[in-house]
């Protein structure tokens, strides 16, 4: 029988993949089975284009408690018997279609990944990208996404403590919504997502199963030209119920933390719903299963086995319960007023058998389903991007000194540099009362309750850099995220990543994907921060062209003593301000990919670079200086350059700054160049000597920039700016 092309298109399988499937199966799949294979072999679930590349990431280490890709999220030992579980995941396409619900269910999905491991979620971060906000649709997407994140996270009672909002032309109509969740669990209490033990029960808990979200994984997130199908795919976007998720979370947490011996596994239902959930658990536990589909509670009559197996209805979990404790588990969920029903059981076979009213409707070999084909390609560097990366930013005329103050104010009003307060105050960032450093600084710091420890978390990613040089851009994303964490006094320990790219069949896109993976890997090696979890979102396109390649890095840092945390703000007048790493004078090439260059010259050119070894030494210096009690504040010098970073330190703290160094060389590069590996610190005057000695010891250049003042002025080289005017520009830049 020749399967119709239309049927293959619906599940995003190629003819070759179908033939491979038939060969491995030894027969033609029926309709239900084809839908299941299509979903599991999709890029979204099967990572068929990215898997070979992801193996390049360093993923091991003393602190790592999970094997990457083998569980719902990565777990890292942070000491005192505690582990952090973390992951970042995209919900780009659903958010492009239905921003509020797309973003909300993105939060819901990542939260389930965390509590599926027995952890209690303690923080959320959101890394967001939008097209220019002066265009109506982008603003609609922006406000919808922010509303959805707040609407869901606030209701759950999990603080949203950080993230980014970045604007760029290539995200027009295809926003990036990457949600990261961080949870805490006793290191010996991590729950696996596996099914094993013949006769053990598969319990479906939470929401009823509806017709929403069918083909979300295969149809929406894994195909070229998604924009063309946004309207028809609208039903593939799920609608969230955060209240139910809250109850589900509390019940699952109680189950995992207090009655872990009742269960063998816990798994969320996300992309490809029941299909991926059951098959992945069986694959991990090397078991089979029988499902009795008529037992699955449904939102409406007439649903077919195909719809039941592929529904992506939210707020559902699969509990693999020991047979003798099924009644106990059911009782626990009943107390939390959450539905719980046995829908099948574990077998010692190697297939998942689907039955409806006792009749077999499908039979899927676990190995065939969960081992999607993998593709490697030879990427091809875009000649157009290559030419721009080789262009010299120094060819533009330098900034005139008398225009420097005005340039600062104009630049800081741009959405990418402006204050994000109007966004993060829409998120509850305090609930659970662990938030020590709230959003708005370099990284958020949370205490670990019951200990003296703290963790710092940050996200970072720069599509503009990656588009010019994917390798360096990937490395810089890691360097900057690590630097952010270091600026709070925390040592970076692990990474979770979300790779947002266009279609991998486009060899120029593929080249950037491979390049970014290599750059991330190099930086993670340099900083000793393994990649413990992650997610890939391909087929992100805007107006037929790929988005900027955008790897997003979520970084975890650990503070042995949370009371020793640092903030970005200048805390007092009369403090000395130092630049650690690098110099004030910067070559024109540091303007590569800078906000300044795009704002002033409308150019995205040059090659951004990072010296990973120098960066690592800088981190050691700042952490050492903080341990020695020498620092009052620390702030990363990155987007917008040194002048913007100084302005942020002033604005956050309410103090002024008076520079004491000459600004030499090119003014634009010195003030707004984005040379990496630099941190601005403030210190008591008597700390200067100790700081200098430490810096010399580790070989990091330092420059004393000036002093903080209680005058409302920022004076630095040619800049002489009234901070009230700068503040107004900074606070109104998002137009909210």
């Amino acid at each position, binding site marked *: 029988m020749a399967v119709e092309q239309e049927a293959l298109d619906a599940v995003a399988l190629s003819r070759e993949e179908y033939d491979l499937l038939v060969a491995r199966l030894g027969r033609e799949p029926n309709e239900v089975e084809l839908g299941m294979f299509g979903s599991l072999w999709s890029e979204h679930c099967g990572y068929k284009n990215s898997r070979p590349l992801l193996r390049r990431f360093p993923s091991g280490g003393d602190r790592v408690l999970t094997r990457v890709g083998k569980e719902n999220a990565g777990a890292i030992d942070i000491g005192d018997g505690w582990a952090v579980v973390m992951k970042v995941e995209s919900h780009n396409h659903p958010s492009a279609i239905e921003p509020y619900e797309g973003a909300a269910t993105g939060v819901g999905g990542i939260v389930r990944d965390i509590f599926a491991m027995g952890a209690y979620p303690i923080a959320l971060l959101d890394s967001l990208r939008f097209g220019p906000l002066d265009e109506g649709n982008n603003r609609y997407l922006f406000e919808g996404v922010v509303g959805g994140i707040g609407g869901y996270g606030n*209701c759950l009672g999990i603080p949203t403590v950080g993230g980014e909002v970045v604007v760029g032309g290539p995200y027009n109509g295809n926003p990036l919504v990457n949600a990261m969740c961080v949870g805490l669990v006793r290191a010996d209490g991590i729950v696996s997502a596996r099914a094993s033990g013949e006769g053990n029960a598969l319990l479906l808990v939470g929401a009823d199963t509806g017709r929403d979200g069918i083909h979300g994984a295969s149809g929406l997130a894994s195909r070229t030209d998604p924009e063309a199908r946004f309207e028809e795919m609208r039903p593939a976007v799920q609608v969230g119920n955060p209240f139910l998720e809250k109850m589900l979370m509390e019940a699952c947490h109680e189950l995992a933390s207090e009655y872990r011996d009742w269960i063998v596994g816990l798994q969320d239902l996300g992309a490809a719903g029941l299909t991926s959930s059951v098959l992945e658990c069986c694959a991990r536990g090397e078991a089979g299963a029988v499902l009795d589909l008529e037992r699955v509670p449904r939102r409406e009559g007439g649903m077919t086995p195909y719809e039941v197996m592929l529904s992506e209805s939210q707020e559902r979990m699969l509990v693999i319960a020991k047979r003798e404790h099924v009644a106990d588990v059911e009782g626990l969920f009943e107390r939390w007023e959450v539905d719980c029903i046995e829908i099948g059981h574990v077998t010692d076979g190697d297939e998942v058998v689907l039955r409806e009213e006792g009749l077999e409707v499908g039979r899927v070999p676990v190995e065939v389903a969960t081992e999607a084909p993998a593709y490697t390609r030879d990427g091809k560097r875009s000649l157009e991007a290559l030419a721009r990366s080789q262009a010299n930013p120094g060819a533009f005329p330098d900034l005139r000194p008398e225009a420097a103050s005005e340039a600062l104010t104009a630049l800081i009003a741009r959405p990418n540099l402006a204050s994000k307060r109007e966004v993060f105050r829409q998120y509850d960032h305090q609930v659970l009362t662990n938030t020590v450093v709230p959003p708005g600084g370099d990284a958020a710091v949370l205490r670990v309750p019951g200990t003296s420890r703290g963790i710092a978390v940050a996200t970072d990613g720069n599509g503009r850099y990656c588009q010019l040089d994917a390798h360096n851009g990937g490395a810089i994303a890691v360097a900057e995220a690590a630097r952010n964490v270091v600026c709070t006094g925390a040592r970076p320990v692990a990474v979770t990543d979300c790779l947002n790219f266009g279609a991998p069949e486009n060899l120029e896109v593929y080249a950037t994907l491979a390049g970014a993976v290599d750059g991330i890997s190099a930086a993670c090696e340099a900083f000793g921060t393994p990649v413990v979890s992650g997610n890939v979102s391909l087929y992100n396109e805007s107006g037929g062209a790929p988005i900027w390649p955008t790897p997003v890095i979520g970084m975890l840092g650990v503070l042995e003593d949370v009371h020793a945390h640092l903030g970005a703000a200048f805390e007092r007048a009369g403090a000395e301000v130092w630049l650690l790493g690098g110099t004030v004078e910067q070559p024109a090439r540091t303007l590569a990919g800078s906000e300044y260059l795009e704002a002033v010259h409308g150019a995205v050119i040059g090659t951004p670079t990072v010296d990973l070894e120098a960066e690592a030494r800088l981190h050691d210096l700042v952490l050492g200086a903080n341990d020695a009690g020498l620092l009052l504040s620390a702030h990363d010098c990155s987007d917008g350059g040194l002048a913007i970073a100084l302005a942020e330190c002033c604005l956050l703290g309410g103090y002024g700054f008076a520079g004491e160094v000459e600004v030499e060389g090119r003014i634009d590069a010195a003030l707004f160049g984005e040379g990496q590996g630099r941190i601005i610190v403030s210190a008591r005057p008597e700390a200067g000597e100790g700081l200098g000695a430490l810096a010399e010891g580790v070989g990091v250049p330092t420059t004393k920039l000036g002093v903080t003042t209680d005058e409302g002025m920022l004076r630095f080289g040619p800049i002489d700016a009234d901070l009230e005017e700068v503040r107004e520009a900074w606070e109104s830049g998002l137009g909210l």
Partner: protein
Amino acid sequence: MRFAIVRFPGTWSDRDTEHVLVNVLGQEAEIVWHQETSLTGFDAVVLPGGFSYGDYLRCGAIARFSPIMEEVVRAAEGGMPVIGICNGFQVLCESGLLPGALIRNRSLRFRCEWTHLLCESGESPWTAGIGEGEVLRVPISHGEGNYQADRATLDELEAAGRVVFRYCDEQGDVTPDSNPNGSARNIAGIRNEAGNVVGMMPHPERAGEELTGGADGNRIWRSVVEAAVGAAV
């Protein structure tokens, strides 16, 4: 002193309240599930913040029908100190223990930020230890905290000294700019006639430690503890 912290489905400030009462202030506290029907053995009741029943229908509108609420009403009428915070304030209004209603913030957006509160009434165990005119720094976190009532009710509340807290600036001046949600007359918290029942939108349990931003909220908990000790003497 022994506090009952009521947990409705969707409540999320229950553990934060428990943490500050037990770990910071050394009091006894127990989280009480909304299906319970007794408050025996407790000296005070906290209805904490959160999204009871997801705030579906209307904030607090479903929670007021929870079994425990009959007992809360009885305890309040019997003079037991009862405080409703954020969603708990909404529940108190829905259940008729306090007048007025909380509607959407004037900005139409959720707001989570630190606010300053002018304490205006000491005639409640919850504020007896705070001087009138003192300013506390306590955060808010809500989408529907805009307190409204008809003019007669507002006049009556003010005349009877039942406005407990008003949003103000750092210096204690009650200004339009310091009103984060559009509440009538900058009202952040009110009490019943007897004074034992207080409702407030800001979260004192989030202002319990300097490490997490400030400890002014403890003034409220200490006040009720001192009042109880005083009453017992």
